[in-house]
């Protein structure tokens, strides 16, 4: 899939729009943030996640993973479908600290 580079895309936006052009809506990481991280040499999904926090939020990356992959493809030439998924870590859903604190530490996960 052909996609504009972040630079071409953001040229036509005003400053506010540019900042709010989120790739990762959970952590409020903009297209420009991700593009900058890739330019710095973060060229895997996990690299970008660690550098920017994209994919570390409530949805755990299921919404931004493709977009980040396509940006890596556009900027580096590495096909997005050859990238490994971001490392998945618990919790997969929202859990209250209170309910976890009540677990028995001897038998808990």
């Amino acid at each position, binding site marked *: 899939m052909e996609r504009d580079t972040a630079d071409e895309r953001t040229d036509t936006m005003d400053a506010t729009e540019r900042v709010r052009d989120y790739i990762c809506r959970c952590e409020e990481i903009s297209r420009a943030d991700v593009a900058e991280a890739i330019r710095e040499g973060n060229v895997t999904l996990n690299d970008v996640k660690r550098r920017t926090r994209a994919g570390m939020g409530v949805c755990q990356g299921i919404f931004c993973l493709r977009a980040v992959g396509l940006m890596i493809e556009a900027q580096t030439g590495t096909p997005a479908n050859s990238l490994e998924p971001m490392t998945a870590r*618990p919790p997969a859903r929202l859990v209250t600290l209170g309910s976890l604190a*009540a*677990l028995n530490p001897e038998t808990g*996960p």
Partner: protein
Amino acid sequence: MRQVDVAVVGGGPAGIAAAIASAEIGASTILIDEHANIGGQLRWRIGLTLKDTGGLDVEPGPGLVVADALAGRLSQFDNLTILTGTVAWGLFDDNVIGISNDSEADEIKPDSVILATGSTDIALPFPGWTLPGVMTARAAQTFMHVHRVLPGRTWVILGDGEEADELQGDLERAGVDVIARSANPDDIRASGTNRLTHVEIGADVYEADALAIALGRQPDAELALHAQAKSAFVSDLGGFTVHRDESGRTSEPGVFIAGDAAGIGSLGEVIAEGRLAGLSAAGASATSLDAARKTLEEISSDRRKNAIANLWTIGTGV
């Protein structure tokens, strides 16, 4: 910590089929679902009609009717526990599952776990996609069919596949206007102050209060990745897909995956797969397994069969 023979995560068509199959042959079984009512996509994809029952003993018919019938079937098993309103938030060593509802957490220690966690809508970001009024097709369907709320009057749809057609049908039946459709996420922009008021597609500007992202669905296999099951990107199955055989066995012992979570499929396909995974996980006889395999074979499209057969030959991420 609860001990059980088989735990099924996800109470959609695949998970229900798996739980029934497991309980039928006497395995102690737990079915976990995060929603208030089991049924999964049968409850928000109101246009779905069950034609192929995938070996499940239920009358074909509209999805919602089938969901209620299946809920009735499930309640007949003494060896089956259903936990609704409960999330499975982690899959740990020895297949221990962390679960939680609003007030408390617990762990389940199953001999086998079947992940039937379904799908998530594919979203590709574009300028303005986080404005209120912009939502995925699933969100629009959940608003309308589960919560009985019409989230917009004048709609634009992003997408040109089956999901977009399905949503357009739902919206038109609800009596609202779909004024434009675009297939290209690189050529769309949403704008408005505090909420969506305008959608630009190329040089055209539309006044709209709702924009649905209907680019298709992708497997939601996060728990399998907790267990470090191998996966690869397979376009024909919707995205990152866990390596598994036709019975749903992943690379990790005792971890099965079935239904849309294992690759987006038709209703008949996901039910037949769920049933086969349930029988396999519960240790059914070779005769029952063969019968379930035959049913799945008959229902599966060649495209799905090929994609699954190739999964074990694709290296992780290659």
